[in-house]
């Protein structure tokens, strides 16, 4: 296992569309293990996408279990070739990104999502989740399409009052 280098914006890999995973082999699983170790090496980090380490494939990890306030929590999940099939509701929360250090901003995301994909062995999986975990899935999903949260920031801080 190894901690991988995390690419920092404006590294062009963060703007690339990732390729569908077709080979569910040991190479993929080893990479996922390294990705996991990389995610846990950052305090407070609850998700990471393959392209953030320069690997342009449709794979991300999410683990919100260490956030005690996260009500919906499936533990550590590796999702390959994910597709968000349903989105419902809208809420704003504060996001930051390993690839955009020292900045956080308010982003609007769907409150509830239904997401399908494959696990590291190619078996189909489906997840229905809400709240903080749903934010995590949507943030990581964006990375696979070259979108970073800065593209979606509504306001850097409080913006409750209509001006």
């Amino acid at each position, binding site marked *: 296992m190894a901690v991988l280098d995390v690419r920092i914006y404006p590294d062009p890999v963060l703007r690339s569309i990732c390729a569908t995973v077709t080979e569910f082999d040991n190479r993929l699983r080893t990479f996922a293990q390294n990705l996991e170790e990389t995610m846990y090496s*950052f305090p407070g980090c609850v998700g990471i*996408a393959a392209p953030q380490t320069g690997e342009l494939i449709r794979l991300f990890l999410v683990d919100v279990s260490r956030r005690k306030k996260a009500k919906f929590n499936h533990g550590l999940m590796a999702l390959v070739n994910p597709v968000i099939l349903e989105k419902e509701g809208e809420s704003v929360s*504060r996001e*930051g990104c390993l690839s955009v250090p020292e900045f*956080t901003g308010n982003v609007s995301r769907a409150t509830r999502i239904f997401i399908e994909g494959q696990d590291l062995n190619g078996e189909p999986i489906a997840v229905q989740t809400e709240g903080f975990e749903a934010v995590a899935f949507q943030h990581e999903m964006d990375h696979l399409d070259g979108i970073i949260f800065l593209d979606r920031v509504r306001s850097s*801080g409080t913006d409750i009052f209509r001006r």
Partner: protein
Amino acid sequence: MEAKAVLTAVGKDQTGIVAAVSGVLYELGCNLEGSSMTLLQGEFAIILILSFPERDVMKKMQGRINKLEKEWGLLFSFREVPVEDFESTPKTESNPYTLNVVGVDHSGIVHRITVLLADLKVNITNVNTRLIGEGRQVPVYVMFLELDVPVIADESEIQSELRKLADELRVDITFAPVDVFKG
């Protein structure tokens, strides 16, 4: 030698103010490192952190500012800040929180709450207050604060002190951590 400065401006809002100010900075080859602007009841306020590739360039600023003041009727302040002050600012480790206050308006709400926060070593990073329903019999006061709470602070102590104060002021106070997603 690089030099840094803080520029602020306040005045009546007019279309084109930001373009006029940023135009001057651009002409002087000055970099805009950060800015924050807001409007309140038609009043404009902006704060800018500027960096100059050479200290000499900074001396040209005052003349340009005087011109902008006349043209736009704004009130400016301009002050050099030693570069070291930006870099060596000791940042105590802290977590973001929000504090919302809602209640019937009466004098002293802001003062009492902010004094308590200062006593608890909590730093205020953003303030927004409004009176809603003005002209109605009972105007409602709302305040939204963003706070930096030192990691060593006792969250439950802050919570209970705020609750006591809320009872005394007869307002509702909600103090909650901002759950920052990171990935």
